[in-house]
């Protein structure tokens, strides 16, 4: 009970700090800081997506960069055609974020459905390798597809639009990303507390017992995997708009690894784990990246320490073990 209260306190602080820092930067006219906070928020959305599969369902997907990249390419391709005034698959391009997000989620969800249906027949190291293999297929496909830039990537000349906001202003884009992150966290919390979450977490802990009380593991896991891919795909579309650039690098296996690192640093399966993890990762990149180009070495050491001494990540370190009631 006490731990739960501590965790909610910590969550509130994280949510507040992630809003207050860019707010201060906006008032102090420091757009770079606002962009960093936006990056944290978008990475966190992607990691909340992965947290559904990995944290709640115990499915260690080493290929979630695929959905990030798919979402990114949906945004890039739509903007590309809107800019050129050419149709894509018989439809006009669009520079509106909302329909782009919907398409990004549909595409990444459909691909996650196929990948999940095939890879969920395996488990453990085989599952990790098959999800990685699918992501690598996406990576090399994007690399060798000249229509949308191939290995040079695809620039987005004008950021896509959001009703009532001026997305070319860093603060506006941050508010959009922060709002989506809060909605994503709310949905994650509801999902975890609902019957679906109860079934999913039970399957992670003891699939035989779940089946013996009448819960078919495959359908529940596949549904979770699809939802997970959709959310990461949405983050990909937003990431493309933040950097105004899409490239195969978004689908690289290192990106998949980064998403896993975010979750481990923050706390696997914890509501605000992705937020804490994304903040730590981006913080490291900025502060240690400025000091030395070997900053990933130091990140690696921190990751090692977390895995060895603080299995619950930052959230677990401060708020203790997770309770499911």
């Amino acid at each position: 009970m006490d731990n739960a209260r501590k965790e909610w306190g910590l969550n509130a602080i994280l949510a507040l700090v992630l809003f207050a820092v860019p707010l201060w930067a906006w008032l102090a006219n420091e757009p770079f800081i606002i962009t960093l906070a936006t990056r944290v928020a978008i990475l966190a959305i992607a990691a909340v997506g992965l947290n559904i599969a990995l944290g709640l369902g115990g499915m260690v997907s080493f290929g979630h960069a695929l959905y990030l990249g798919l979402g990114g390419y949906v945004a890039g391709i739509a903007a590309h055609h809107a800019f050129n005034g050419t149709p894509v698959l018989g439809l006009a391009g669009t520079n509106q974020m909302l329909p782009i997000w919907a398409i990004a989620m549909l595409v990444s969800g459909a691909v996650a459905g196929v990948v999940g249906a095939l890879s969920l027949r395996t488990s453990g190291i085989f599952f990790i390798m098959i999800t990685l293999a699918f992501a690598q297929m996406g990576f090399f496909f994007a690399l060798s597809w000249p229509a949308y830039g191939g290995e040079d990537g695809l620039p987005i000349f004008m950021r896509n639009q959001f009703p009532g906001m001026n997305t070319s202003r860093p603060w506006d884009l941050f508010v959009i990303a922060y709002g989506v992150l809060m909605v994503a966290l709310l949905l994650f919390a509801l999902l975890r507390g609902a019957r679906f979450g109860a079934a999913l977490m039970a399957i992670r802990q003891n699939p035989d017992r779940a089946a013996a009380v009448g819960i078919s593991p495959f359908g529940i896991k596949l549904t979770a995997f699809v939802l997970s891919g959709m959310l990461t795909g949405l983050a990909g579309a937003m990431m493309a708009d933040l950097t105004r650039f899409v490239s195969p690098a978004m689908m690289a296996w290192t990106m998949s690894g980064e998403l896993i690192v975010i979750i481990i640093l923050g706390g696997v399966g914890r509501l605000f784990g992705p937020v804490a993890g994304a903040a730590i990762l981006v913080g490291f990149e900025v502060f240690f990246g400025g000091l030395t180009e070997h900053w990933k070495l130091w990140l690696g050491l921190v990751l090692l320490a977390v895995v060895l001494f603080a299995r619950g990540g930052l959230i677990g370190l401060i708020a203790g073990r997770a309770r499911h009631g």
Partner: protein
Amino acid sequence: MDDVVLELRGMCRSFGALKATDDVSLTLRHGEVHALIGPNGAGKSTLMGLISGRTTPDAGSVWLAGQDITGLSVAQRARLGLARSFQVSSLIPEYSALRNVMLALQAGEGHSYRFLRPVVFDRTLQRVGRDILDRVGLAARASVDAAFLSHGERRLLEIAVALAMKPQCFLLDEPMAGLGVEGTARLITFLQGLKQQAPILLVEHDMDAVFRLADRISVLVYGRIIASGTVAEIRANPLVRAAYLGEESTQ
């Protein structure tokens, strides 16, 4: 024959050259405890696997309440009311006793594809779950994680979970294992009442418990049922004494 709840017809299953289950047929009728006994390696676990759906048979069929369930998965059979307990306690370790029971209740109510409504606000699920824990005497331990329950409490929680599944019949795999004298005595009393709700197919090593509980006994040796009958018949059967009880008494 209407009162047959569970029926096995000519079940066979081999692993390589080993016939783990060899032409086994048996019935479980309303209101009875049917005990399955046999020495180690007789094929009891394989048979339990065949009934619960974990293992697919080479031949034969399983019928539950007149329906052929041979082709159904473990989860589908469970939803039809085949409630099993495990030989080694198998629960959701990070869930409280109450949530373990609630999980079985939610599965029995239909599907688990409800994404938004918090389970903690599901009053019916909570209340029915507490009632069931109360029946097995675990009400005071409702909020303790399964991982932190004692061995005996975990055995009871296994029974509670089975109760939550709207059972047509119980498949209890060594429920007395490691319970001690007092715990065993209490469980025997409880199971005597339970069989009125749904019949019990009982695999058990504790012979005293079997003789006190069982209405019928089937003896499994090398995958075959060598004898089947009432307690008195089995006690008197020379084949059984040679194959099973004789071995027991020399230990």
